[in-house]
């Protein structure tokens, strides 16, 4: 698979579940799942902010930390090229597409910025994006195509499971 997992897919990683089995199988095959660094940020942020009110999230955080440290999956960094592409994307699409969303405007804005970083990371790394949020990433892909018409398009695909 040549697609980069976004947060909607990577957030399904759990000690009990078929997603972890899939990730471990892929690592064993020598084709580790690729996860965008900003998705790692979102996952860890989600767990960390819950630790104060629910200690179980501390356990989950420790598990995820060990998983990452054990190279069970490959983290694709937001490098200089990706940062340049992300800045151009954000300049054209500063706000997320309007839709029904129970999150605060600030949180939606923060998530949107991370989605931009994930799309740019995939684009700059020569990968596609695998996501459950295909609408927003299709918008980002269309904008990349408009910004860089000579570049191979960013495909937005569903997850493997």
């Amino acid at each position, binding site marked *: 698979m*040549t697609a980069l997992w976004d947060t909607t897919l990577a957030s399904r990683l759990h000690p009990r579940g078929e997603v972890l089995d899939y990730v471990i199988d892929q690592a064993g*095959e*020598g*084709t580790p799942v690729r996860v965008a660094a900003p998705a790692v940020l979102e996952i860890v942020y989600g767990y960390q902010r819950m630790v104060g009110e629910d200690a179980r999230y501390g356990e989950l955080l420790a598990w995820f930390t060990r998983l990452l440290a054990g190279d069970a999956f490959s983290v694709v960094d937001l490098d200089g*090229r990706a940062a*340049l*592409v992300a800045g151009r994307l954000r300049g054209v699409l500063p706000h997320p597409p309007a839709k029904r969303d129970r999150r605060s405007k600030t949180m939606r804005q923060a998530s949107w910025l991370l989605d931009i970083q994930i799309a740019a990371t995939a*684009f*700059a*790394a*020569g*990968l596609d994006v695998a996501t459950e949020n295909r609408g927003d990433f299709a918008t980002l892909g269309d904008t990349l195509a408009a910004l*860089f*018409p*000579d*570049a*191979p398009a960013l495909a937005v695909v569903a997850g493997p499971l």
Partner: protein
Amino acid sequence: MTRSASPRAPRSEGSRTTLRLPDTLAVVAERLARELDISRNDALLRLAARGARLYEQEQSIAARRAERWAAVVSGVVHTEQGDIPSPEEARHAILAARDQTDVRRS
């Protein structure tokens, strides 16, 4: 089970080759052969096929990465002759964006 009892690989097309097998690869091939109950040669072919598939995938990703980057940095820019914002305007455009202001109107 003896080695001779291993199922033979299906007859395959392609040119024959002779090569010297490094010890490390021989160990892995022997292990895979035992695991799948196939001949060492067949195990070597499977390892090579998997390696070739990975190599092709990596090459394809690297090519697309380069092609996309070439599209991002296309064209030559001559800042000496071009009409560009002053250093103050340029810095303001960057820092004003932090305050969510619309810098195009400022």
